[in-house]
């Protein structure tokens, strides 16, 4: 449906453009019609004026319908705008201090002691103290929101600016909570808070009209560098479809997030910013053979064809990922060989030379697969055929699944591609290959994708992948005393020269591509170097918003 609409839109725009060329008398687009009636006192950002506008209008989606309360999950990708976090990830995704001045982890890795800066104030003028930090973490741990702080045992105030966070078990990925959980004021946090947030972040809320827009202004009490852009308007038009594109085309916004299919268009005075992401897509294989086992909820586990390592590796080797990027993603993407492409904890050695029919054939021959009468491979009477399911609502995944099936066919492996709803996928995802997409800055995701203990819990390790040595490496990573030390283990789990869950090892998945996130940005707006973005397209681009600059005079 969305694809259809986008196609339709493209068609109509094309026609109009043609007709506009043919008739030079067509009314020239002017700004005056829309601005003339606006009161002169109101801030207006006409696109034809190139001097700094008093406010930026961004159509990047990301409305948090349930409000702006970090304890319920607001800002879980970092940079919560209204609040500030203890730590932050910079452009290279390294951890740097924000509210925290330093933190130490006890020898048993259960107690995290955090000192916070003493000059931070909430936007209502009250100071930020360790009471507020302890309150925030306790509240987030209790409430059923979108941020998971269940590892926390308790938060103890040990000084006006010092707090201890006690964990139930060692877990280095808890540092991600420090980098994403915005601190809320204990004195002003109640049921209304989500609608009227108060925090110590760079911006404060001016007005929020649900479903329409969020207006924010620079917080004069912010302890960090004052942002150059004093007023921002987030316009909530449909940013996954064509709404944001239309807004940009109408010259009404300075930043618009658009799907890759519309990124090929031209918009006057705007440039295309193509941001790398770890928003990945890949084929999950059931790892175990079908032995008639069922999940606790009664769904079948295992697939005899994909349980064969030769099949999984051969598929990984034969697929032409660059062609997928060009053909399906219009060039806005990059090949993926693992679940954490481009992040500091990616194992570079896990990358393979793909589009390699010879290697793939050799692997299959070594694995005992022989051509059957109809060209499909056979091993001990088992045909090399299985079903690959994609969510029917997602046209990109459909195209990826169909292209992958085509690329695999010359090997003698038949992939039947089917689109299903998520409710059906939940029943079939332990016994069929699924085209999934994930991608996060939180390494917990990698753990849950590949650790055998996560098998069968919701969308965690759905293929029941299990390898004891990988399990222990992942456990070592999670129990490491610092993120830096954990990274070595995260990389080893991917591939350590003999073992790993990526292609050269167990090839538990065939990762295909990472989607680029495409934005139209005003030519006068410098948005710095964006981070490698997680799964969500849109809001993550605001991570560095404090440093955005208007460059035209």
């Amino acid at each position: 449906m969305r694809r259809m609409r986008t196609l339709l839109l493209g068609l109509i725009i094309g026609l109009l453009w043609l007709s506009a060329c043919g008739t030079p008398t067509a009314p020239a687009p002017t700004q005056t019609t829309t601005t003339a009636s606006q009161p002169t006192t109101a801030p207006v950002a006409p696109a034809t004026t190139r001097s700094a506008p008093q406010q930026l209008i961004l159509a990047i989606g990301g409305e948090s319908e349930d409000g702006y309360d970090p304890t319920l999950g607001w800002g879980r990708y970092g940079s919560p705008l209204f609040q500030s976090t203890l730590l932050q990830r910079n452009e290279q995704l390294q951890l740097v201090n924000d509210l925290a001045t330093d933190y130490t982890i006890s020898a048993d890795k259960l107690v995290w002691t955090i000192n916070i800066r003493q000059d931070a104030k909430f936007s209502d003028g009250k100071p930020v103290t360790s009471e507020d930090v302890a309150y925030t973490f306790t509240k987030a741990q209790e409430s059923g929101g979108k941020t998971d702080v269940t590892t926390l045992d308790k938060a103890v105030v040990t000084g006006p600016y010092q707090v201890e966070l006690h964990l139930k078990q060692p877990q280095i990925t808890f540092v991600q909570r420090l980098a994403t959980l915005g601190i809320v004021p204990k004195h002003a946090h109640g049921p209304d808070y989500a609608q009227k947030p108060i925090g110590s972040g760079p911006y404060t809320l001016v007005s929020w009209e649900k479903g329409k827009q969020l207006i924010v202004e620079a917080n004069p009490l912010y302890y960090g560098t004052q942002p150059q852009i004093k007023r921002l308007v987030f316009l909530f038009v449909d940013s996954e479809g064509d709404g944001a594109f239309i807004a940009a085309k109408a010259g009404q916004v300075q930043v618009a997030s658009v799907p890759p299919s519309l990124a090929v268009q031209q918009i006057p005075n705007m440039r295309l910013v193509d941001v790398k992401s770890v928003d990945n897509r890949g084929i999950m294989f059931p790892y175990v053979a079908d032995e008639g086992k069922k999940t606790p909820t009664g769904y079948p586990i295992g697939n005899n064809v994909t349980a064969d390592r030769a099949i999984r590796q051969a598929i990984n080797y034969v697929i032409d990922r660059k062609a997928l990027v060009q053909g399906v993603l219009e060039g806005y993407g990059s090949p993926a060989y693992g679940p954490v492409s481009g992040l500091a904890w990616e194992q570079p050695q896990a990358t393979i030379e793909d589009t390699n029919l010879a290697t793939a054939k050799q692997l299959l021959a070594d694995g005992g697969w022989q051509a059957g009468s109809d060209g499909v491979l056979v091993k001990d009477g088992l045909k090399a055929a299985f079903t690959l399911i994609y969510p029917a609502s997602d046209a990109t995944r459909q195209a990826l699944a169909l292209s992958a099936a085509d690329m695999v066919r010359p090997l003698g492996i038949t992939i039947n591609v089917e689109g299903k709803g998520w409710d059906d996928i939940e029943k079939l995802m332990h016994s069929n290959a699924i085209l999934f997409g994930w991608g996060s800055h939180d390494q917990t995701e990698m753990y849950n994708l590949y650790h055998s203990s996560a098998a069968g819990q919701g969308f965690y390790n759905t293929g029941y992948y299990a390898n004891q040595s990988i399990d222990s490496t992942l456990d070592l990573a999670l129990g490491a005393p610092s993120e830096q030390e954990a990274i070595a283990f995260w990389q080893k789990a991917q591939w350590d020269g003999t073992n790993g869950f990526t292609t050269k090892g167990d090839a538990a998945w065939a990762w295909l591509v990472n989607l680029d996130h495409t934005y139209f940005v005003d030519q006068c707006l410098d948005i710095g170097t964006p981070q490698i973005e997680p799964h969500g397209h849109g809001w993550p681009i605001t991570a560095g918003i404090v440093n955005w600059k208007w460059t035209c005079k």
Partner: protein
Amino acid sequence: MQIASSILRFTARKLLRLLILLGAVAVFSFVLINLSPIDPVNAYIGADMLLISPEQRALIATRWGLDQPMTVRFARWAEQILQGNLGVSIIFNQPVATVIADRFSTSLALMATAWILSGAIGFVLGILAGMREGSLIDRAIRLYAYTLASSPTFWVALLLLIIFSVSLKWAPFCCASPPGLLPDQVTITQRLQHLILPAITLSIVGVANMALHTRQKLIEVLQSEYALFARAQGESIWGLVQNHGIRNVALPAITLQGAALSELFGGAVLAEQVFSYPGLGQATVQAAIRSDVPLLLGIVFFSAIFVFVGNTLADLAYQVIDPRIRIGGGAQ
């Protein structure tokens, strides 16, 4: 005295029907939504599925009472409803009544404009076409009506948006007011500017039904014996339409207009989606695709009452127009 008691009887009967209707709507919607395959917890978590532990999922389910069986939830919900409390929306984390009031205030202007315009224009077009059956104007109106009746609302909306907002820039491209202005800075003129395109979309799609039905009915009237008799007495075509046509045609038109209220809800959902007009329609779509049971039920309730009231008003309007079915007048 007799009239007063029959008005009382009428009101009581209507109220009883409304109660039965709401009861049935409540039970059916609740069961249907709970049978929906969409898991509200999954819908809420979205892409963060791999970062939320089973413990946290349990916390989320408890927060919304989803850990209870359906019957318990229905009993709790019904108990709250009887106290006048519609519950709290899962998506918006706010009382359902607040969300509906907020959204409906945006939708009201849009729906009312579209309803009045499509009714009035459709009626006039129907009369014009019916008066001169088979003429050029009749055929033009029919062509228009058939074309529009078979065009999807969202397609018409998109087309108008592309032509008038993107290309010609005569109309704003989105929303219920200009972006970047605080609610109290927005003038009436600006609100109207933003209302025009969605309202026109809904109207031009809505006129088809009314025009075709009115046309058909008027043709019937004009072919009747009393019309022939009037013609024979020297009545002009205009006089015929004025004295015999409009009154007779008005009855089905009013029924149709009353019933159009429910279609209006459906059309508004699509138009609001295309024009990013944050009204009740958008909220309905979200509530449905994310299994927000309290909000969806609240909206279903609200729209049931809305349509019911609309149809009742149509019933009452009959009695003003048609003396034959006037309350208390029927017996004589």
